[in-house]
């Protein structure tokens, strides 16, 4: 166990260039207080991906033996049966089939590292993307006024003081609701841009950076001063890192997509040992009202990208796999029936993926009923039979060793469903 002083003395200070304003304030503060922090290296890391737009869970992981689905989706239904189509679903367990473009997930599922939860969603039946995303990210499905996000609260519950600015990082152009709250968190759209730079003039950059640090320190706007401080602290830590020439390990190849680039940067941060514990990123294009396609098309491209990106990430961080759990989420699912324009409208239950060595994988968890009309929510949608909070809280509790669900998810005391081991 090292102390902060020890940590600083032990040469970690070399991480921080003294050029811009010297030592990050959090290090200085901690050095003065002499508080103990846990070493960064072996901390557990939770990586979350929000699929904005509501993924069609029935097409990602299809209950292909259910004829009701086939009837409801004459143009969208796919089967795992061989010989009917060139690319049948990947039969997971005789009942559920993975979309053929998600073949990168198959080995992870067979190795029991990848778990799937189906018919999961929010108890609030709103079919508004924006409300449903807010509710899910706040973790309070019936309270619009919640000002903090569940992942921010999770950071507060980690049980160790001693955050670096990189404890919670979102690779996105804006800070997601999940990260709103009292605990510091970063939004970074691109690690390479994450510095004060005047092209070709390091001296002027340096002087400008010091000036900005002074100004943001004194401003009367809390948002600006707090964000400014977090930015400068993080910049100082990143100064020595070579973010431009990153080479993924083990021959991992990230798709050249937004999600691929985001996950690559998360992998970079994990391997830099900067104290990352909660990471977040997002991807869009799931709102498939029109021409959703089957084995090819818009949806196929999206799920293919999702699985290929996650697989590249998992390959890249192979020596850190014991420390990392990855979870996907989406605000709701889509109608059981196809709509009039070759797509699906807003529905209720969808599915999510959890990947990690602690995951109770190789199983499609949850309870997907037969899709006859009387089983459907409002006669049209996959009923939500698993509350998203039961999965989120189990993953956070088990992986990050958080066990204050009252704070993490107020008003929630539901059961866990066994998606994690032990």
């Amino acid at each position, binding site marked *: 166990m090292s102390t902060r002083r020890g940590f600083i003395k032990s040469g970690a200070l070399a991480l921080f260039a003294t050029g811009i304003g010297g030592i990050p304030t959090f290090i200085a503060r901690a050095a003065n207080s002499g508080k103990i922090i846990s070493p960064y290296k072996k901390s557990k890391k939770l990586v979350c991906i929000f699929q904005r*737009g509501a993924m069609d869970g029935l097409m990602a992981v299809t209950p292909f033996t259910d004829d009701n689905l*086939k*009837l409801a989706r*004459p*143009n969208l239904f796919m089967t795992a049966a061989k010989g009917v189509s060139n690319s049948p679903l990947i039969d997971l367990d005789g009942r559920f089939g993975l979309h053929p473009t998600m073949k990168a997930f198959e080995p992870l599922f067979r190795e029991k590292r990848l778990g799937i939860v189906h018919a999961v969603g929010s108890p609030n039946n*709103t*079919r*508004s*993307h*924006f*409300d449903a995303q807010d509710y899910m990210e706040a973790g309070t499905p019936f309270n619009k006024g919640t000002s903090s996000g569940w992942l921010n609260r999770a950071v507060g519950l980690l049980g160790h003081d001693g955050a670096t*600015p990189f404890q919670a990082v979102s690779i996105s*152009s*804006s*800070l997601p609701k999940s990260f709103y709250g009292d605990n510091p968190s*970063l*939004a*970074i*759209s*691109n690690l390479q*841009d*994450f*510095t*004060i*730079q*005047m*092209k*070709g*003039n*390091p*001296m*002027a950059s340096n*002087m*400008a950076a010091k*000036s*900005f640090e*002074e*100004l943001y*320190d*004194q*401003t009367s*706007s809390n*948002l*600006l001063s707090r964000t400014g401080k*977090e*930015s400068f602290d*993080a*910049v100082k830590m990143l100064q020595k890192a070579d973010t431009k020439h990153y080479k993924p390990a083990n021959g991992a190849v990230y798709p050249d997509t937004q999600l691929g680039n985001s996950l690559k940067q998360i992998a970079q941060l994990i391997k830099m040992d900067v104290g990352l514990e909660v990471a977040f990123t997002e991807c*869009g294009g799931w709102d498939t*009202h*029109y021409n959703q396609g089957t084995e090819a098309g818009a949806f196929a491209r999206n799920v293919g990208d999702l699985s290929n990106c996650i697989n590249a990430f998992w390959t890249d961080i192979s020596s850190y796999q014991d420390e990392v759990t990855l979870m996907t989420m989406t605000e709701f699912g889509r109608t059981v*029936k196809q*709509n*009039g*324009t*070759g*797509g699906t*409208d*807003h529905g209720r239950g969808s599915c999510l993926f959890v990947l990690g060595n602690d995951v109770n994988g190789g199983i499609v968890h949850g309870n997907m009923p037969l899709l006859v009309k009387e089983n459907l929510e*409002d006669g049209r949608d996959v009923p939500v039979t698993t509350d998203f909070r039961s999965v989120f809280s189990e993953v956070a509790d088990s992986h990050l060793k958080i066990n204050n669900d009252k704070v993490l998810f107020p008003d929630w005391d539901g059961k866990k469903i066994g998606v994690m081991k032990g």
Partner: protein
Amino acid sequence: MKKYSSVVFILFFLIGIVPILSSFTNTDSLEQFTSIKFPYKKAGLTERQAAAHLLSRFTFGATPNQIDEVVKLGLEKWFEQQIDAKLPDDSLNVALAPYETLNLNNKQLINTYLNSGQLINLAIKEGVVPKDSALHFEYKNHKTQIDSFMNERGLKQQQELVRQLIGQKIIRAASTNNQLQEVLTSFWYNHFNVDVTKDNATNYVICYEKDVIRPNALGKFEDLLIATAKSPAMLTYLDNFRSVASMNNQGPEAAAKILKDLYEQQQQMRAKGDTGVKYKELGNRINYLKNQQGLNENYAREIMELHTLGVDGGYTQTDVTNAAKVLTGWTIFPMNDNQGLQGIQKMIDKVGIEKLTQQGYVHDGDFMFAINKHDQTEKVVLGNTFPVKGGVDEGKKLINMLAHHNSTAHFICKKLAVRFVSDNPSKELIEKMATTFLKQDGDIKQVLTTMVTSPEFWCKNSLREKIKSPFELTISTVRALNATINQPYQLFNWVNRMGEKMYHYQAPTGFPDKAQYWINTGSLLNRMNFGLALASQKIPGITFNLAALNNHHEPESMEAALTTYCKLLLPERDVKETVKRLLPLINDPQLDSKIAAAGKSVKNEPEHPAMSNDMMMTMMDSGVKNDMKGKEATKRNDTNNNKQASLNGTVAINNNMLSQVAGIIIGSPEFQRR
């Protein structure tokens, strides 16, 4: 005491009479506003402070000396001019003259600006590119043939249209005299958001902003709502153009059953190896039926959730489904010469437009109401019954109902107050505005007037309360520096990097209008970097003269420079603390030589846009070949610096110092606020 108060009375009388007198010279349209009075004095603001606040809310940022101009004209009078939006814009029109897309209608744009896929398909169809070429869908493999084909036909690349869309917006926002109209155009575009990358919506966005949003930005809300509802951009973006009554009005179950049976037949035939004529005919029939399609709820939901009532405005899922039925058949009149047009034209020729109109068919500009796609059944939305066979009128009735709904008044007024007052406007203010909205038939001018004459607008805690969006930051900088924009796309790259890729927001919500959305660690650093890059003239195609801003008076010391430029760029703000904090850093006697030396030692490289697509845009922007760009831009910068230096008779070192100071002010927290 008595004497004093009578003086005050006379003074007030005089102040009161000036607007009344001036009203005689006003045009008719201004008359209704002549009695307005801004209560800023009660809030403890000076006239100049009030003018600065007014400019921060109703423009994209004050230009040098604009506060003086507004004070001279009178604050109320200035607002009246803005709300009337009829100021001449001659120099803007000159600047926009090269933007040829602004003179074309949707049909011309659709048929002129093609994406690579459309170009290659057309080239194949016309025999310019061999059909059997295995590589035929690779544009780059046939560039020469296609380029000359495009020349011959007057065709252009679609990305040129997007480039013009972005360029004209930046130039207009920076220089129009009718600033409020443009601020509201941005506001309403964001409210009725359309993502320019959505399939097939791209070419409609130019006219959407120009003909649908801007002319209605200061009109009646219902006119704006119906104009968006009928616009090809919105009909495409939220899928309503394809939303039709289920097959022969049989209901979705029956329709799905028919298709299912046909699919089974198809499968059986395939299994038997029977793939002859009959199999093909069956396939055609399935495709035909698939195109008959059915209901799509996307637009019906968003018109209620996002455009009018708000998510808590009191509608249900059943209301959404029924509203979607009401709006079936609201679609686009086919205008693509290469597809679809013949069919509808054939129908018109065959049946005759009169007969079709009698049957309920409507053709109005780009809009078409296809009665044969309309759901003829009875529907109930929000408790109102729409009887059978309501035709196009039931959609109009629905929109009228939504536009005048109490929830809509509150939802819209809150959004306006958030844009123009603060992130958390008071309930009282929203209530006042909503009352005007309902009483005045959703007249946006009247609603804004209610807002700006309310004490809440002027109270001290709304001053500087808003954080500029990246676009607002960029344009306010350009305006404050009186900069010339030769390459607007360069500014777009920065706006994008700071988190606001304009016209590209995917979700129909538009960008959230709150500080927390814009300010985060990554975007904040980019705001600072933007200030530094712009001020040091490292953004190609954006030029200005810092010395001219101060009438070529050379500041006597760094302290003087700092104070002077703080006041120029942040007029009517308290800059004491800023100066105090910066002075010790800037006052390093060796600093100017250090900066100059460091600057010289490295090549003066222009900013490079991040993506290859942007590179192409940049190339088009500057009108020079890509490999020339760096050199040209550098040369231009150098010339500029020299010119500046010779103008004020100082050496380049001081220019560097001034740039540094200006860059820090632009990146400072105070400049992020408005």
